């Protein structure tokens, strides 16, 4: 598993596991080290900027929404 997917996988696990989320809230460093995030990823998560995390994870979505207003 790449480091990039390790972060994506952690986000999946945090979204479905309330106990893990609580552990993460109390001690994020321990949880992130357990799943093997890189220093860059640790810094990204600590920075608390969702847009930077999105940019790092890549893929085909942007921070913008999909405006679908129909006239």
């Amino acid at each position, binding site marked *: 598993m790449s480091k990039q997917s390790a*972060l994506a996988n952690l*986000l999946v696990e945090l*979204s479905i596991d309330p106990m893990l989320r609580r552990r993460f809230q109390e001690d994020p460093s321990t949880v992130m080290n357990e799943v093997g995030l890189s220093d860059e990823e640790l810094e990204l998560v600590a920075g608390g900027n969702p847009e930077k995390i*999105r940019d790092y994870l890549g*893929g085909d979505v942007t921070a913008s929404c999909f405006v679908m207003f129909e*006239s």
Partner: protein
Amino acid sequence: MAQGRLTVIGTGYNVAGQVTPEALSCMKQAERLFYLMSDPATSAWLKSLNAAAESLYDCYRVDEPGTAACERMVERILTAVHAGLEVCAAFYGHPAIFVPPGLESLRRARQEGFSARMLPAISFEDCLFADLGVDPAVHGRVMHEATDFLIRPRIFDPTAGLILLQVGAIGLVNFRKEDAPNREGVRLLARTLVKHYPESHRVALYRMSQLPIFEPSIAWVAVAELAEAPLSVCSTLYVPPLPRRPIDPEMLARLQKTVGSSLIAPLECELNEGTEGGNRNVKAERLGESPG
């Protein structure tokens, strides 16, 4: 050739945590999984669930109306259905709420005689009610897309909660990648709202959390200061209701005759107190009001 089938689902928000077990099974079992997500973690998760997962994001073209992208998405989804495949189309949020390609592909597939269904999901509104602590059944609530709300003058009831979608994207019809809101549009909205609410009325700019490591963004501001508030193109505006209207004694009396006095007694108390809206539910309602 097998008869193609379509299931349209929503994944809610916050990566995988709001996906129903039924929707999860549909995504895993589909022969072709199309998806449109708002964060890359969810996209990566969907690809891990189903090797036949395919993003619809490339249907968008910068500076082109969203309706053109919608048409391309529907065409791509239906082409797979026509090919006899078990197709799942997954959209973030609720697939029926502000997701034109979800409903349109469902409609056309059915019209063409294919089996097609939509599964319910967690919507942005469900997240808003939970995060703001609002019970929409107490005062009622009205929901509009913000641009639509402005250009088609609405006769709405300000004693019900008002939810306006995409307040940062007012007037923006074409797809774009930038996240900069149209603040002049928000200024116009604020001028419209102060015709119905006191300038000091506190409103919430809300954006649900889309990654589990972040809290939702909730900013309470006076309605007159809306244009200066922190917002993005995806922000939703929640305007708490004004005090409830007084009870109509004539209607109350007529209703009383239909059910007997005991059921109406609490309402009679409110009527006798002469308060506009009464205070019986104030404690419960406070959660959804501005803390300021």
